[in-house]
């Protein structure tokens, strides 16, 4: 059971990473608009015409 002394702090570190990631996403406008992405699969994204 002593492994808990490693695992739980490790878990906390992971949570800190998750929170840091979440803050990063919010700051970079990832949650500003949620409707459009659901549609993106329907459209072709070929940018071949782009020079």
């Amino acid at each position, binding site marked *: *059971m002593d492994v*808990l*002394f490693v695992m*739980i*702090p490790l*878990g*906390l570190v992971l*949570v800190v990473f*998750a*929170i840091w990631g*979440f*803050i990063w996403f*919010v700051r970079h*406008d990832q*949650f*500003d*608009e949620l*409707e*459009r992405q659901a*549609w*993106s699969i*329907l*459209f*072709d994204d*070929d*940018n071949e*015409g*782009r*020079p």
Partner: protein
Amino acid sequence: MSSLVTDNARMITDHAVQRQCFHCQSPVPSRLDLTVTIDGHRQPLCCISCEAAVQFIYDLHLESYYQYREQCSTNMVADKHTTNAEYSRLHKALTTLADGRQQLMLLIPDLRCVACVWLLEQVLGREAGVSEVNVNYATRRLRVVFDDRHSPATLAKRIEGLGYSVRADLPDASREAFTQTRRSLLLKMGIAGIGMMQVMMFAFGDYMSGSEMEAEFLALLRWASMALTTPVVLYSAWPFHRAAWFAIKNRTLTMDVPVSLAIVSAWLLSVFNTLTHGVEVYFDTACMFTFFLLIGRYAELLSRFHFQQSQDLLQHLLPDSVLRATHPEDTDSISISTTERVALETLAAGDVLLVMPGETIPADGLVVRGHSGVSEAAFTGEAIPQPKQPGARVLAGSVNHDGELLVRVKCEPGEFVIRQIARLNEQAGAWRPRWAQLADRTASWFVAAVLLIAAAAGIYWYQAGSADYLVIMMTVLVVSCPCALSLATPVAYSIATTTLRKHGVVIKHGAFLERAADTTAVVFDKTGTLTEANLKVTDIVLANADALHGIPDPQQMCMSLASALEAGSEHPIAHAFNAPHTLFVSNNKVVPGYGVSGDIDGQHYRLGLAEFALPQPDTRAPQPAGSGHWIVLSRQQQALAWFCLQDTPRAEASAIVSKLHQQGLRTAVFTGDRSMQADTIRTLFGIRDIRTGMSPADKVNAIRDLQQSARVMMVGDGINDTAAMAAADSSLAVTPRDSFVQNSADATLLSGSLRMLPAILVFSRKCQRIIRQNVTWSVVYNFTVIPLTLMGLVSPWLAALGMSLSSVLVVSNAGRLRWMEH
């Protein structure tokens, strides 16, 4: 790939079914036959610009746009082919990034669906020199980063070429603040959510082990939970603490007080027990309360956000700058070279503006030169252009379709009808029924009661020896928070007013929706309400066959003569005579109250009442029988023809009345006018209760009588029947759009048509039903859960989840008011 052939043979097809443009979905003028052939089907187009746009989209192989776009509502049709947007203002929305590239922020008011977003991103993204494009569908804003191969104007032209209009997106303090609030709430919610999940995991270990876990592991779990819960309580739950603190400082109690108290006490007790190795910790409870309550707050914020968005778009219908004539006196010589570009807000009454085809009309005023079709979709929801000629009134926010117009500004920008609508919309959306206002005022007593009940429950369970007394106390504090109840009404009203506005109904008095829902009888005024208040010639009876012998179409001839005589008159009767003619009238005179006279080809003609046109009664030509207003045309005092003038009933009126009867409503007509017989009205509109020749006081009395047995809605023009409207339970005006400000009705139909009336009644009932459901749900929820919690039957997580689901339920139920059946 689909085949594409454009074909622009123009043919005159007058009775064509109303068609929609394949590209922009606005109505196609019936005379135009411009089509594009897609996959073998001919599709109509409304203008050359749309044809160019279709061609362009197919050239780039972006045709899937047409496949996936939604049926876009035409309510928000702004100027779809702006030819000279405010390019000069675009640079204000331009910033230079650190690496030298330029960033442009644009607002696209008529962005209609997700496919539009994709199209814009594809088209701009393929431009050489454009490195980043983002379009935000929710806020209708576009951000583009580009290098020196482009200028704001070339990019704006590209977007306009697709049929969208472009506005510079200038920083706006209130919107900025809103975005900030939303973002910070999202951060708080996310952190609370992640923290909660982890803390629950630790708590789970604690529960499952029973009391067999060794003390050092237990301490480890508690310390870990504390490390996670502390930021949740101090950061995520901060809005609650802050609001509670301000409430207490102002010596009132708001809902935030018990919430904040519950969260803080759960946390403090747990910290204390962790440090002193006490019996129980409640970190999971504190996290859950915070997270779930934030969900409710977030739902509320989003619903306000939608309201804000629709207000925002109403504001952005008007361009930022306008072309003002430098010499307004001389209207004939004004051209684009004698105008200057000035900011919209600097306009004053009397200025003369030049409005190019495709532009939004920037000000309320009168047309002084030019002819054009103008679409007033922003007011009426009806996109079909109405013809405008010199002397016609135009409103800021409507779109000039075909011709160049000179418009004389009528009032200051702040007084424009569209601005007044925005203000009224804001007021009506914020209105709350009396019982809700009462509930707000008594809220602090309610909160005080909650605090007392929670304390009493805690004491009782402590006395009873329960270990859970603190949990029960905290749960009571959270569960009795009437969040859903406080949302029930305002959310519904703000959504309902926006929906009605989009359908051309402006509410002036918030109580309108509530009272209209109870209506059991509808009283109409006649002139201008059931009829269009413009006279038309309905019958021509020839009086003297000999005098007109040998003329191929004598009726047409008489009509032309009459039109020539009336051409110089401004009387309403004159508008009925509008046949084309080439006759020259000399000695044209208007005799007020009787008629007009004049000489044509050396013969003296008169048109008017019989005693004026026929000074010696002509026994061979008696006045024809039949109702209506008869006037006679005479030549050399000999009767030529009788004209029957009648007010035209509104085409939709009788159908509307029968729809009201289907809804089980009583109808009546109270009119001051005697010209139309009660029987005629009865057969025309199918209304049984008809009273003619009433004075304003008679109308008020008649409405009071009717109110003995019914809830009365008065429908009129809102100007002539002010007293009757005030006496009725609710009132609705059908009125010319520019006089809507003066009218005294609770609500106004800007479309000038009765067509929406049955739908409004149905909608107001739907609105009241939804509010009732919301209120019932929240009250029932609070009053069943509080006793259960007091009995210790509701666990904290269930209480918190129920709370937030309740708020979400109420907000989404109100969201059903975004649709209106008609």
